[in-house]
């Protein structure tokens, strides 16, 4: 199904206060920055953010934190954002810390219809607290629950209007898994190319998973006008 591209402002309007949003990126590499800017401009509030980390002030998820848009985070690392740490300590943001490999598997499980993740990671640590332990052939594993969200906001390298996405180098990170686990998936590609241009073997997120694309950055959403 062909998908028209939205302006960041129009896409941000889809996201109401109080929504849960998965946001791709690793230290803001592979994060949909224009989408985040539009959410900040809109003044969205009370988001639950699922993301690998809270980046740093002024970049990626850090901009949402600074804007006071986030009330809860499910994340593996906030160490490079002193604002998140301060807001967590004063109680303005509640933070659930999850081991990185567990976090990405929980997202995958949510997106792929699995009941949870059985992992040895976190056994015998604070991460185990309150969780079910499942024994398989005498070995113990933590049962970590699947994660889904109202929205997944992801960054990609190329998109076509079917919604197919490719990713570049370390900008993959959480994006392909989050594309599976958001009820509405909004992708901010670096470029949009005609359908048929991305080779099938380069597509890492099939278009059926993507609901909306953000327009190209460099044309402000205006297609080139044919003059001749």
């Amino acid at each position, binding site marked *: 199904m062909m998908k028209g591209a939205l302006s960041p402002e129009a896409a941000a309007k889809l996201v109401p206060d109080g929504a849960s949003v998965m946001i791709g990126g690793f230290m803001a590499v592979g994060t949909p920055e224009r989408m985040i800017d539009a959410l900040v401009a809109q003044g969205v509030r009370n988001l639950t953010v699922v993301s690998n980390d809270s980046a740093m002030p002024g970049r990626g998820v850090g901009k949402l934190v600074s804007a006071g848009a986030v009330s809860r985070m499910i994340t593996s690392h906030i160490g490079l954002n002193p604002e998140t740490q301060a807001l967590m300590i004063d109680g303005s943001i509640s933070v659930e810390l999850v081991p990185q490999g567990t976090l990405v598997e929980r997202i995958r499980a949510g997106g792929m*219809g699995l009941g949870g993740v059985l992992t040895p990671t976190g056994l015998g640590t604070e991460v185990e607290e309150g969780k079910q332990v499942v024994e398989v052939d005498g070995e113990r594993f933590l049962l970590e629950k699947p994660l889904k969200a109202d929205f997944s906001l992801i960054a990609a390298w190329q998109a*076509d209007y079917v919604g*197919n996405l490719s990713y570049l180098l370390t900008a993959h990170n959480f994006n392909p898994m989050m594309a599976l686990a958001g009820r509405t998936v909004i992708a901010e590609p670096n470029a949009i190319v005609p*359908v*048929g241009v991305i080779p*099938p073997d380069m*597509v890492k997120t*099939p*278009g059926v*998973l993507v609901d909306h694309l953000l327009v190209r950055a460099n044309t402000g959403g205006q297609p080139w006008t044919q003059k001749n």
Partner: protein
Amino acid sequence: MDAKELIARRVAREIGPGMLVNLGIGLPSLVANYVPASLAVFFQAENGVIGLGARPPEGMEDPHLTDAGGGFVSAVPGAASIDSAMSFGLIRGGHLDMTVLGGLQVDEQGQLANWKVPGMMVPGMGGAMDLVIGAARVIVAMQHSARGEAKLVRECTLPLTARRRVNLVVTDLAVIEPTDAGLVLREHAPGVSVAEIVAATDARLIIGDDIQEMIVA
């Protein structure tokens, strides 16, 4: 029009614009022939492609691009290659809009049996159990009877494919919708009477007032 074509043409009408659809091998695969290109439907083959297209011209087949039955296919513009983990992640995760599967039996609870006849035929479930669990809509496309035996039964005597109630059963005689109340007869095939359908069915059918003649694509 023969029985298989009738069934395939009727199932095709269930498919809406832009859907992601998985067609089982055999009869269900015929459905693709009757879905207009204007609907921009994407067909998934669970062996690893979204955007399955028609068989290529002779001599242009490629052994790396087949459907789940091993038949040569093409890839439409916008197609994507996926591995089996992604393929079944899409299926199990609820990203597949519809699957069309063959059936050995469907019972009054709308449960499907289609992977095993104990002691006789044990092909294995392949992807069927995941498809029935995961697809948003499950349509069973089958002959109404096989070798004189009704396939719509009170209770499946063959091993179930899943506990889930399927959404619609399309046969060469009728269209039947499993509901909370039981199997509701919705449509009859051209030239087939309600009495003939009831006679060919072991399961109890709920017969409404507004039974239509099948319209086919």
